[in-house]
C-alpha cells in the first residue's frame, strides 16, 4: 500500500484503441493489487480491473488538449489508454503504477494475497488435482527398463530439475553424477516421454561440456543406456535444437554438442531454433504490427513477415514433428537439448508430445504436459515472464510459442483437440498474471523453498471447473486420424497470425458470430433434449407433439450477440482525411461518448456507435486530388480535412 501515492482520480477518460469516439469518463482507483476504472453512470459490469502483475509497462505520453495520456501495456497484449485531467495526478498514478507493476520480491506477487475463500483442505486439493506420478504411470512407467531414481530428491545433483526423475534402470549413480557434471547446470539426460507401444522415449538434457575435444565416459554410458532401454532400436537421435553456428560458438566456452565419434550409435542433428533474445525481439515486432492503427493489407503482411514470428513457430513445429516421427514411425528414442535445456528443449519436447499422444490434446492432458515439461523441468517462468523486476534480457515468450504451436495445430486439425483456443488464452493469462502459484519462481526447488503450495492456490483445478467454456464441440476422439500421431503440414501457408491472442481486446476485429459457441450450445441442447425425453417417458405424460416441437424450435435460438452484428466497421482505410456527414451529429456523438447504450438492447456487449459514420474521401492519402487540380476545377466536391 505504501507505493500508492494517489488512490483515486476522478474525471479520467478511458479511450478505446480503435476509435477515439468510444470514450468513457469515470474514476480511476489504485489498490494494492488492481487498477480499477469505474465508468460514470455505468453499471458494475463495465468496470475495468487490471491486475498489477499483468502490467508490462506504464507509459506517459505528451499532454494533449484533453489531458495527460497514460498508457498501461499489459502482458496479455491489452493496451489501456487513460487521459487524466491533471498533470500531477497523472504523474502520481504513473509513479505508483510503475512501482506496483514491478514487484521486487516474490512475496509481493498477487498469488500470495489472493484469497478465494476456501479452506486449507480445498487449497491442498487444488494442488493434488494434477499428479505427475499418475501421468508417468499412464505412460507405463516405471517398468522393467525405467525407474525413478532418488538421486535428485534433495536437488543436490541438479537444482533446476524436479526431485523425481526417470532414468534407465541400468544406469548407476556414478554414471548419473558423472553425466551431470558433464552437462550445463547439471541437467543430465532424463526421460520426458515414454511411448508404451514401441518403448521409444523422448529424453532431455542440457548441452554437454564438450568444448573442442572433451569427452565424458559416464555421459557416453548414459546415452548408451538410454538407447539400450529401447530394445528394438539400433541407434538413437540426438537433437540439438540450436542453429549449428550457435552450438559451435558454445564450444569456445567449453560447452557445445555431442561428437558422433565418441558416442556409440547416435545420429546427431541440428534443428536451428533461434535463442530467447531473437524470439523476444520477434514477438516485440509482432506486437507492434498487431497494434498498428488501421494498417493497409500490405503494411500488415509486410510487418508480419518482418517480425519473423511465424518462421520461428514453423521451426519449432518442424522440430516437434521430426521428433514425434522418429518416435512413432521409426521407433527410435530421441535425446533433445539446447543450451540449458529449459527453453527450446521444453518447447520441442512438448510439441512432440502433443503430436504423439492424443491424451495431451485433452484438457487435462495439456495441463499435465505443461506441469511436467515446463513447470517441473524448471522452465524459468519468473524470468521469462518478467514476474519480478529484473533482467529484461531474461524475458522471452518461450511458452507463448508453445501455446501458439498448439493453436496452429488446432487450426489444422479442428476435430483433434478437446479444448478450444479460449483454454490456451486462459493458460496464457495465468502464466503471466501471478494470480495462482503454479508459474511462480524458476524451478521446483525454488517453489518448495517458498512454500508456494501452502501460501498460494493452483490454477489447474480452477480451469478444470470452468471446463465447459473450454470445450471444442468438434472434438472427435474416436476418429482414427485423430488417434495416433498428428502429421501437420508445415507448408508456410499453414502458419497463421493468431488474432485472438494478439488482438484479443480489439473486439471489432473478431468474427461477430462464433461457430464454435453456437455448436456448443447446440450440443448442450441436444443433451438436454435427450434428458428431457427420458423425463417425458418416465412420467408417461401425454404431451402434444406440437407443443414439444415449439419449445424445441425456440430452444434452438441461440444466445447470440446480434446487436454486435449491427455495428458498422471502420471503413476509413487509414486515410488521414476523415470527414463526418453532419457536423451536428458528430458533436452529439462526442457528448454521448461511450456508444449509444440506450438504443441497444444489450448494453453489456453492445458496441453500437451512435449514428455517425466516418468515411474517407479516398482510399489513401496519395489518392487525394492534388490541390492544383482543385484550383483548376473549382466545382470539385472533394472533401479534404479543411472542409470537414
Amino acid at each position: 500500500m505504501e507505493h500508492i501515492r494517489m488512490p483515486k482520480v476522478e474525471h479520467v477518460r478511458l479511450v478505446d484503441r480503435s476509435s477515439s469516439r468510444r470514450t468513457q469518463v469515470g474514476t480511476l482507483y489504485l489498490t494494492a493489487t488492481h487498477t480499477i476504472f469505474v465508468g460514470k453512470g455505468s453499471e458494475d459490469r463495465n468496470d475495468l480491473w487490471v491486475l498489477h502483475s499483468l502490467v508490462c509497462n506504464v507509459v506517459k505520453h505528451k499532454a494533449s488538449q484533453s489531458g495527460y495520456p497514460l498508457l498501461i501495456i499489459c502482458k496479455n497484449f491489452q493496451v489501456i489508454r487513460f487521459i487524466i485531467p491533471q498533470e500531477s495526478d497523472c504523474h502520481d498514478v504513473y509513479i505508483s503504477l510503475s512501482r506496483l507493476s514491478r514487484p521486487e520480491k516474490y512475496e509481493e506477487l498477487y498469488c500470495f494475497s489472493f484469497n478465494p475463500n476456501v479452506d486449507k483442505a480445498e487449497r491442498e486439493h487444488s494442488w493434488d488435482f494434477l499428479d505427475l506420478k499418475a501421468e508417468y504411470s499412464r505412460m507405463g512407467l516405471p517398468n522393467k527398463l525405467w525407474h525413478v531414481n532418488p538421486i535428485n530428491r534433495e536437488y543436490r545433483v541438479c537444482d533446476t530439475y524436479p526431485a523425481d526423475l526417470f532414468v534407465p534402470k541400468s544406469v548407476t549413480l556414478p554414471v548419473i553424477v558423472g553425466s551431470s557434471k558433464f552437462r550445463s547446470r547439471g541437467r543430465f539426460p532424463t526421460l520426458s516421454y515414454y511411448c508404451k507401444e514401441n518403448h521409444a522415449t523422448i529424453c532431455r538434457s542440457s548441452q554437454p561440456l564438450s568444448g573442442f575435444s572433451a569427452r565424458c565416459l559416464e555421459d557416453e554410458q548414459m546415452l548408451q543406456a538410454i538407447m539400450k532401454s529401447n530394445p528394438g532400436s539400433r541407434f538413437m537421435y540426438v537433437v540439438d535444437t540450436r542453429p549449428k553456428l550457435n552450438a559451435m560458438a558454445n564450444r569456445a566456452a567449453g560447452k557445445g554438442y555431442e561428437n558422433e565419434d565418441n558416442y556409440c550409435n547416435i545420429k546427431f542433428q541440428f534443428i536451428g531454433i533461434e535463442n530467447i533474445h531473437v524470439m523476444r525481439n520477434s514477438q516485440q515486432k509482432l506486437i507492434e504490427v498487431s497494434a498498428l492503427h488501421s494498417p493497409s493489407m500490405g503494411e500488415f503482411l509486410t510487418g508480419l513477415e518482418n517480425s519473423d514470428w511465424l518462421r520461428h513457430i514453423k521451426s519449432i513445429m518442424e522440430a516437434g514433428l521430426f521428433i514425434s516421427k522418429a518416435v512413432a514411425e521409426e521407433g527410435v528414442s530421441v535425446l533433445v537439448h539446447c543450451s540449458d535445456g529449459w527453453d527450446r528443449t521444453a518447447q520441442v519436447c512438448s510439441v512432440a508430445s502433443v503430436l504423439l499422444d492424443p491424451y495431451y490434446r485433452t484438457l487435462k492432458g495439456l495441463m499435465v504436459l505443461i506441469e511436467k515439461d515446463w513447470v517441473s523441468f524448471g522452465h524459468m517462468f519468473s524470468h521469462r515472464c518478467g514476474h519480478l523486476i529484473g533482467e529484461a534480457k531474461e524475458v522471452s515468450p518461450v511458452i507463448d510459442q508453445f501455446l501458439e504451436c498448439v493453436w496452429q495445430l488446432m487450426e489444422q486439425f479442428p476435430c483433434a483437440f478437446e479444448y478450444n483456443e479460449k483454454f490456451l488464452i486462459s493458460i496464457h493469462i495465468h502464466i503471466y498474471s501471478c494470480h495462482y502459484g503454479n508459474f511462480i519462481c524458476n524451478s521446483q526447488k525454488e517453489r518448495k523453498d517458498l512454500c508456494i503450495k501452502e501460501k498460494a492456490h493452483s490454477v489447474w483445478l480452477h480451469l478444470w471447473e470452468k471446463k465447459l467454456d473450454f470445450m471444442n464441440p468438434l472434438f472427435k476422439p474416436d476418429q482414427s486420424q485423430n488417434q495416433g500421431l498428428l502429421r501437420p503440414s508445415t507448408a508456410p501457408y499453414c502458419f497463421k497470425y493468431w488474432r485472438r491472442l494478439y488482438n484479443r481486446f480489439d473486439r471489432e476485429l473478431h468474427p461477430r458470430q462464433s461457430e464454435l459457441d453456437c455448436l456448443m450450445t447446440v450440443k448442450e441442447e441436444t443433451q438436454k433434449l435427450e434428458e428431457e425425453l427420458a423425463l417425458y417417458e418416465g412420467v408417461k405424460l401425454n404431451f402434444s407433439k406440437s407443443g414439444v416441437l415449439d419449445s424445441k424450435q425456440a430452444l434452438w435460438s441461440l444466445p447470440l450477440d446480434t446487436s454486435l452484428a449491427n455495428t458498422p466497421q471502420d471503413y476509413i482505410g487509414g486515410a488521414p482525411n476523415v470527414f463526418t456527414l453532419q457536423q451536428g451529429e458528430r458533436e452529439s456523438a462526442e457528448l454521448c461518448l461511450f456508444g449509444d447504450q440506450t438504443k441497444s438492447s444489450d448494453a453489456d456487449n453492445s458496441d453500437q456507435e451512435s449514428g455517425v459514420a466516418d468515411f474517407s474521401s479516398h482510399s489513401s492519402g496519395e489518392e487525394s486530388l492534388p490541390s492544383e487540380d482543385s484550383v483548376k476545377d473549382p466545382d470539385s466536391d472533394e472533401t479534404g480535412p479543411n472542409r470537414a
Partner: protein
Amino acid sequence: MELSEHIKTANVEDVTLRRPFHPALRGTLCVTSHHLLFSDRKDEASWQLLILLKNIDAIEKRAVGSSGTITIKCKDLLVLQLEIPGMEECLNIASSIEALSSLESVTEMYPFFYRPSHLTLNGPWGLSSTEQYYKQTERLWDRWRVSTLNSDYSVCPSYPSAVIMPREVDDDKLIRSARFRQGGRFPVLSYCHHRNGMVIMRSSQPLTGANKKRCKEDELLLQAVIDGSELGYIIDLRSAQQAQQARMTGGGFESKSFYSHWKRIHRHHERGKVVQESLIKLVEACSDPSHSVDRWLSKLENSKWLSHVHSALSTAGLVVECVERDGHSVLVHGSEGTDNTLLVSSLAQLILDPASRTVTGFLCLLEREWIQAGHPFQQRCAHSAYSHARLKQECPIFLLLLDCVWQVWRQFPLALEFSEALLLRLAQEVYASNYGTFLCNSEQERCAAGVKENTHCLFQSLLRPDIEEQYLNPLYEPTDLAIWPSVHPQSLQLWTGLFLRWTEYAQNMEEAREEVWSIVKEHHEQAGPDRTNNTLSTHCDTLTPFENLMDELTIL
C-alpha cells in the same frame, strides 16, 4: 471444322494419372469433343475422372524417353499429370486438348450439348426477370417503374431488355442519359432498401470529357432518384486522380456544380489486368509449399489479392453506411460499370439485405447484378491463373466477389443460408460449366446465341431440393440486421477452401464440416422427426431458451 476433327488420337491405353494426395492410377485416357475421360479399368469397381476440356487452363508437355508427360492445370486450380506411352499419342492428345479447351464459338460449347435425362429444356430459364423482381418488390411500386426502352438492346447493348427507373423520368430522357454514359450504361436501380426506401443505383462513368460536357437529362435523372431529399452519394470506384485523367479520354465524373445534391467519394479499386495478375501470383504462391514462411508472406503480400478483397469490402461497407445508417441514396460507378461496380453493389446488398443471404436470394442477386447486368463473363473468365496465353480481357472479379462473400461468412458464420460449398461450386462453374448461365457477355449475346432455348440454367438446378441441401449452412440463423464485416487486415484471411483446395489442408477442414453437420443432425433427431427441414429458420427474439424451458416445466 467439326469438333471431332481436332481429335487425332481418341484413346490411349496404359496411361498413368497422378493427382495430389492420391496414389498413381493406370488406365485408359479418352478425349472427346468436350471432355477428357480417364478410367482405370480395374475389375468391378472402375474409377473415372471426367474433366471438361474448358476447365483446362494450361497444359505442359514433357518427353521422357519414348513416352510423354502432360501436366494439366485446371481453372479450378487442380493440377494433374498424365504419363502417356508413345510420344505421338502424347502430342496428339496435347494438341487436341489445346484446340478444344479454347473454343471461341459459344454454340460449340458443352452447355449446348449437355442433356441430362432429369432436366428438360422447356421450363423457364433463370430465376427471375426484371419485371418479376419489380412485381415482387412492393416498395418499388410507388416511385419506380419498369422501362423497356432497351428491349432491342439498342440503347445499351450490355443492359437487359428491362430496367427499373424513377417513374417521373420518361424514356426519352433515359436515352439521352444513356448517350452521356460509357457504353450506354445509364444509372439504373440496383437495390431499394427494404426499410428506408433509399436506393443503390449503378451506371458507367459520364462522358464529360475534357470540355466538361454536361447532360441535363442525366442530371434530372439523378435528381429524380433522390426525389427531393437533400443528398445522395456518388461512390466513384477510381481515385480522384484517375477520374480526372479519364476526362482526357472522353470519360469523367459528375461535377459538383451540375449535380449539386450529390456528394462524390472516390475509392481506388484495381481492375482488369492488375487483378488477373494478382490471381496468378497468388495461385503461384499457394502451389509452392517448399519455400519459407517469409517468402510465403511476401508473395502473399505481393500478389495484392487480399488488398483487393479489403478494398471491395470496405467500399461495400461504405455504401451500406450511406444507405442504411445515414439514409441516403447512392450511385456506384467506375469506368465501364461492368466489373467493380457490380462487385460493390452486390456486396453491399449482401451486407444490407437479409433476403440476399438465403440460397435463393443470393442466386437471384447474382442473376440480377451479374448475369442480367451484363458482366462480360466470357471475356473475363476465358482463362484463369495458370494460362500462359497473353492476357486479353481476363479479370477474376467474380472470383473476388466470391472471396469477399466467403470473408463475410467467416465473420458471420450463422448469417448466410448457404455454405462455402456453394461458393466453391460457383467458382468452378464460372470458368467451366455444363450449364449456360455464365455463357456470353450480355443478355443480348445470350439471346442471339439462343442460350435460353438450348442450355440448362445452373441456378435452377442448384435450387432443386436434393441438390440444394449440400449447399446449406447447417448453422443458419437469419438476422434482419446489416452484417458489417470487419475490414481490418487482421480479420481478412486467405480463402483456404479455394486456394488450398487440393492440398492436405483441405482434407481436415472437410472432416470438420462433416462434424458440424452431424452435430446439427443429431440435434434434429432429438428435436423430433417432423423437423426434416435442415434450415434453422426459427428466430426467437422474445424468449430466451432458458425461460422457455421453465415454462415447460411448469406445465408438467
